[in-house]
């Protein structure tokens, strides 16, 4: 096998000598040289069909660093044929097998001149063998099998130090401010948003008119922070409807959100001493389909004519349909979402809109819970640090120092 390879190398070198000599010729001779190369390759292919290419050598395997154990880095020395006669190798196929004797299956292809490939389709801890096949115009040659190689999960991704630092910093600030809020015993300050008064005003109006209050929690389930923030505001709304004896109508798009809304409203009614007023059938599942839900809620708006509509949570294409229909029924409308694309619709069609983070701040503020209020203050402190970081970053960039930007880049 080795003897065959050396013989092939020697014959290739002999054939390539005229070509190498021409390499030293002036640049204007480049075109004739290319055609000579092609002619030579074709000639050699005809003389030794299927054996003209030498195989890639020194195939090595390494676990891809900083990953979840699903990738192996394969490296090799490019085929000697490619070094001697550029163009003789068109591409390399990377072949994989689960034992050296089993069939090798192609897992990737890279162009000629490339000497590495990351196979990201492996299972952690499983042995794999690899071959690299050089593919020419008419022939192909595979390297010897290399293995076993293993992919392993790393606990820490070294490309994401910055994410760890910012996560720890933000969490640290939030925890510190929560502790401060707990010790301040209800004295924690959060800016009062105009919507606080609007909530009472809207529910009061519905009570005077003898109509329902409609509450929509958005289109996402309880695993979304916006839905959670919406629950905090729902608790306050439910307290008010319990006090005033107004019906609170909550059609839900997700079953789990419905269960959580029921628990939230039930607690509010208990807190206000009106458990008998609580009716769990007022909080019900409609459908999980986005526009099926829209059709159902629109129908409720047109038939029941609620006097106050709340749209608080994550909203998508349904936002304008809700807000427009509610506007047509003459209801007071209070909306809030962190979905930037939907905010303009709420701003134009609703009476009050909580913009982005105001939704979370309103939820925390209305709950009066020191943990939530401290959390908002901690996030404010983090924002102040980011503010300073941006200013410092701009100054450093203008001074020609890219250190911060490089550190912030996520690899």
């Amino acid at each position, binding site marked *: 096998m080795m003897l065959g390879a050396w013989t092939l190398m020697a014959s290739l070198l002999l054939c390539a000598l005229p070509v190498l000599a021409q390499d030293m010729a002036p640049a204007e001779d480049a075109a004739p040289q290319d055609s000579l190369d092609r002619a030579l390759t074709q000639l050699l292919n005809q003389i030794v069909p299927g054996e003209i290419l030498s195989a890639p050598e020194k195939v090595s395997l390494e676990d891809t660093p900083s990953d979840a154990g699903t990738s192996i880095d394969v490296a090799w020395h490019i085929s000697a044929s490619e070094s001697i006669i550029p163009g003789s190798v068109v591409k390399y196929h990377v072949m994989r097998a689960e034992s050296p004797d089993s069939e090798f299956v192609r897992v990737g292809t890279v162009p000629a001149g490339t000497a590495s490939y990351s196979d990201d389709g492996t299972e952690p801890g499983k042995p794999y063998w690899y071959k690299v096949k050089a593919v020419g115009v008419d022939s192909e040659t595979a390297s010897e099998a290399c293995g076993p190689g293993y992919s392993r999960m790393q606990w820490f991704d070294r490309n994401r130090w910055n*994410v760890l630092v*910012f*996560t720890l910093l*933000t*969490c640290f600030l939030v925890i510190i401010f929560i502790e401060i809020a707990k010790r301040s015993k209800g004295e924690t*300050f*959060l*800016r009062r948003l105009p919507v606080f008064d609007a909530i009472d005003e809207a529910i009061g109006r519905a009570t005077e008119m003898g109509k329902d209050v409609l509450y929509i929690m958005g289109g996402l389930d*309880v*695993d979304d*922070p916006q839905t959670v923030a919406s629950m905090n505001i729902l608790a306050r709304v439910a307290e008010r409807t319990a006090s005033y004896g107004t019906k609170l109508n909550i059609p839900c798009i997700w079953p*789990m959100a419905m*269960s959580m809304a*029921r*628990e939230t409203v039930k607690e509010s009614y208990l807190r206000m001493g009106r458990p008998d007023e609580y009716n769990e059938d007022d909080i019900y*599942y409609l*459908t*999980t*389909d986005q*526009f*099926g*839900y829209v*059709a*159902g809620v*629109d*129908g409720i708006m*047109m038939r029941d004519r609620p006097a106050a509509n709340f749209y608080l949570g994550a909203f998508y*294409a349904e936002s304008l349909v809700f807000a427009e229909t509610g506007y047509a029924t003459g209801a007071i409308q209070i909306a809030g979402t962190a979905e*930037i*694309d939907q*905010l*303009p619709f709420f*701003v*134009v069609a609703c009476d009050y809109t909580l*913009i*982005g*983070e*105001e939704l979370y*701040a309103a939820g925390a503020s209305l709950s009066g819970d020191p943990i939530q209020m401290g959390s*908002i*203050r901690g996030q*404010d*402190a983090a*924002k*102040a640090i*980011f*503010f300073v970081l*941006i*200013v410092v*970053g*701009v100054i450093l*960039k*203008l*001074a*020609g120092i890219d250190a*911060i*930007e490089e550190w*912030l*880049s*996520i690899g």
Partner: protein
Amino acid sequence: MLMTTGPWVWVAGLLTLAIYSFLYKDNPVYKMAEYIFVGLSAGYWAAFLWWNYAYPNLFEPLAQGNYWNIIPIAMGLMMFTQLSRRTSWMVRFPLTFVLGVSLGLQIVAAVEGDMVPQLAGTFSPFTRGAMFNTYDFWTSVGYIVLLVGVLTTITYFFFSKEHKGILGVSSKIGIYFLMVAFGASFGYTIMARISLLFGRLHFLLSDWMHVLK
């Protein structure tokens, strides 16, 4: 001009018109279409969630011997405890588990996906020399406006202090930036909605009525 004879195209066309009849006012035809839509979609989603989530991720692995799946199945069954008043307190276990895990995971996603890239993206154009040499005048002005917009908008979202003094001025400028951004987003999204309307009209006039070729 011959209208299509495909029965399902007829059903889709008539139901589309029934939904559009809401533009006039609430009426029995709309109600019928609404109930069909809500009922069908609820049934569809129940089947979809079963065959795409519950069965392949829970029950199939369990049948193959992955007994860890008993834990999520037990949590899922706890959701049914709310059917009885005496056991309804148990529903809080799966709810709090989902809440805690998902919100915890989203902390990292928010830092990695939003916070860090936006932080770097705000000052990355301010390369030495490029601001006054490589970029044209209006591009440089654009980057400066972007920087001012980001900084003042951040101050609008400070909740720990009253918006008075410098913070008041800054947050006011910030809200102007927000409104300009909302206006641009509004126009952009309306264009997208109009293209959806065109899609529906094309279905009615082409696939159903064969008025358009």
